[in-house]
């Protein structure tokens, strides 16, 4: 790696809407809400922004395929506005582009913003094709499978490899979801704010066996934004900027999906490991289990969070169960995961999710959690993780940030 992004860029402002079934708001409304909060938080005017990156994953349902509709809603002053999409890594990618833009000096103040109106598609859950429906009768169309089924194969393989009997495996997954529901119950911006017991989770109907209803994340509307500047400028805007330590993305090479002679056994996600390895190197992290104080990870399904804990090095391979049962990842555990409630409870408007994770990290670092019960203490480094598309052909984004330089 060349120099990397560590300590070159800082976040000076963040915004995040209430996530949920926002029947009364348009994508444009959510965009403005997130933007309004972010510029206020940064203490800047809209005219100060000289470059913008917007993320939406389902252009069909809201703002169209380019950046223009996003720009119109924000009334920016003819600045470059690019839309991007990278499945569930969309939000994380917008801040990556914005950070690179300021780091290289092309921009002084860049906006990263993401929004999604998933609840305007007419179905609970995602549409059949996930974020886009490929033409039927084509190769893409005939191999199509839904999200729950695509991720449930991880659980089947994981239970088999590590000899977890069905009940133990289900309980491990249920504890993950119960933890996220509890965290969500404390978070006023979260979509699902109900505490759910392990027993209720296990008893819920199957969506894609072995995953049941509560193993699946919320499908929500929401928007989130972040404003970045060069690290050297950050203190001009606020006393407690949050510094970016790493921005990494790994896209599949096709090996896990197509190379049967390869090592992939459906109990992990190679792109998670690749992105994490590079992120730790970029950030100078050698022992993630100890050094990463807390993380917001992509728990689209409970099994995803389980394997992500191992892929990110938070749990030893094959041992996430021990950490889950020991409460390691709970809000009061040594390494809280998804203190926000996660995709599970906070919700998952695809284009916004990566940025709302960053919102959570930044506000936690700055001691601004809405309720004392969910304010974490003394956390040096935080991590966000997103995973797009089905496990064997995913794209993974890992960002690491911290309150201090160095």
């Amino acid at each position, binding site marked *: 790696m060349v120099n990397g992004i560590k300590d070159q860029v800082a976040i000076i402002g963040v915004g995040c809407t209430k996530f949920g079934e926002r029947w009364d708001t348009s994508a444009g409304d959510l965009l403005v809400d997130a933007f309004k909060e972010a510029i206020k938080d940064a203490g800047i005017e809209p005219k100060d922004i000289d470059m913008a990156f917007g993320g939406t994953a389902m252009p069909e349902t809201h703002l169209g395929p380019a950046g223009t509709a996003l720009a119109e809603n924000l009334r920016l002053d003819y600045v470059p506005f690019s839309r991007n999409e990278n499945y569930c890594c969309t939000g994380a990618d917008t801040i990556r582009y914005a950070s690179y833009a300021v780091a290289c000096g092309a921009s002084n103040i860049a906006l990263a913003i993401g929004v999604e109106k998933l609840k305007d598609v*007419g*179905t*609970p*859950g995602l*549409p*059949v*094709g996930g974020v886009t*429906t*490929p*033409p*039927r*009768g*084509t*190769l893409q*169309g*005939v*191999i199509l*499978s*839904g*999200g*729950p*089924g*695509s*991720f*449930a*194969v*991880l*659980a*089947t*393989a994981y239970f*088999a490899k590590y000899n977890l009997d069905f009940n133990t495996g289900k309980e491990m997954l249920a504890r993950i979801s119960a933890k996220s529901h509890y965290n969500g119950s404390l978070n006023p911006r979260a979509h699902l704010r109900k505490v759910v017991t392990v027993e209720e989770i296990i008893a819920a*109907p*199957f*969506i*894609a*066996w*072995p*995953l049941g209803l509560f193993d699946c994340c919320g499908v929500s509307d929401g928007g989130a934004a972040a404003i970045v500047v060069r690290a050297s400028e950050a203190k001009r805007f606020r006393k407690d900027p949050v510094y970016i330590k790493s921005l990494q993305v790994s896209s599949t*090479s*096709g*090996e896990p*999906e*197509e*190379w*049967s*002679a*390869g090592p992939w056994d*459906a109990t992990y996600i190679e792109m998670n490991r690749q992105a994490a390895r590079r992120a730790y190197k970029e950030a100078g992290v050698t022992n993630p289990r100890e050094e990463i104080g807390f993380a917001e990870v992509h728990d689209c399904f409970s099994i995803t969070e389980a394997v992500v804990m191992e892929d990110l090095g938070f749990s030893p391979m094959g041992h996430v169960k021990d950490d889950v049962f020991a409460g390691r990842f709970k809000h009061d555990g040594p390494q809280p995961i998804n203190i926000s409630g996660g995709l599970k409870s906070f919700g998952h408007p695809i284009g916004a999710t990566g940025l709302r994770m960053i919102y959570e990290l930044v506000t936690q670092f700055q001691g601004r959690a809405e309720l004392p019960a969910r304010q974490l203490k003394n956390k040096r480094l935080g991590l966000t993780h997103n995973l797009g598309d089905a496990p*064997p052909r995913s794209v993974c984004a890992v960002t690491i940030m911290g309150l201090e330089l160095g």
Partner: protein
Amino acid sequence: MIGITSYSAHIPWYRLSRAKMNEATGFLMTFPPPGERSVANQNEDSVTMAATAGIYCLEGEDRGQVGGLYFATSTPSYLVRQQASIVSSALDLREDIRVADFASGNKAGTTALIAALDAVKAGSMKSALVAAADCRVVKPGNPQEYVYGDGAAAFLVGQDDVVAELEATYSLSVDFVDRWRAVFEEFEHSWEERWIRDEGYEKLIPRAINGLLQQQKLAPGDIAKVAYCYPLARPHAALAKKMGFTPAQVQDNLLEKVGDACAAWPLMMLVGALEEAKPGDRILVASYGQGVDALLFKVTDKIARMKDKWGVKKNLARRKDLESWERYASMRGAVKFYLGPRDQEYGFTSYSMAWRERKQISRLYGCKCKKCGTAQFPMRRICVNPKCKAIDQMEDYRFSDRTGKIFSFAVDYNVSVPVPPVVHAYINFDGGGRIQMQVVDVDPFTIQIGQPMEMTYRRKLVDIARGVSIYYWCATPVRQ
């Protein structure tokens, strides 16, 4: 010598007890015949069943030698779009062959078989495949619902290694209007059953069978097995006696186990007869519908080659009880059940894309790297093997006749199909390659990681708004 050189049958996995059907529809004062009927799975239709029988028929045969394909059905999925070409692609036959669809009733199967034998006899094809399949759906509660069954049969005909030589044919053609369905109609009509019995089956079948025997100067006693399409159990047996056959000479008509599978029915019976035949046996098979085709075969000593063929007996042993008439009705579209909120989410079908991808979609070809030997799917230009990554070193590689093992799977209820769930799996192929596929004809909760799978050609989707049936490959447990 011209005749049959290979055969097979396909009987769908699901069987529905007629007594169980009666629990749902008996309030209409209909009375079920004994036994059960076969029910094509929700991902099957006549095209896929014909392809399935064709695949079995061609096991151990050289597909490159097949010079023609005739597909017969009374339940086509298209009026305009030749389905023999779909079946031919699934079977990975050559493109420079003659194919045709035979349609409109029970006789379609036997007429296709005669046409193929004639073509070989005339020397215009060296060998030809005949595949007949049917899956009729009647108005819910129509007594024919008990009687009809779904199934397919396939024959390879040619000049070499003939297992049953064609001795003679005799055809009758009359516009006897017993059952009909117009092109604009969903369900068929019929005239009075007693009239059909007395003036149809009882007169036309003996006329053709006796006609054939007289033409060949043979007596009923010269025939080892006689098979004819008469879907009423007791009259069927009585008619044999009237024609001078003993009960032992009458081929099982599969009515109690499968039902009347229309165009495929006489050919399925012929497969059943050939399975039990000895060299020298004469087998007479007769169809029925707007006349009769009667065909006479003489079994040769090459019949021993066929002992491992996937015929009727093996099909009958591979079965699963369908829980209810309602599941049948949803699966076969007899009743339009709610398919969940996602059933309207069809992207358009791009036939220009599908045409470019035809070898992968229709024939299940991937590729194999000439440099490192890695088999992979789909066809890509750069090798997936991380130690190789050779560019443009691929050769075509067929997966459709290969077996594999379940790598991992999920049982997905979040689907818009008539009868959920759907098993979603990754298959690791023996010899290399991994493909994401649906697993069909399996009890989902018996699947094991590592379980052996083979490929089967299925209907993946019907887009009613655009009139599109989309066919692709699925995995199914390896036949035992």
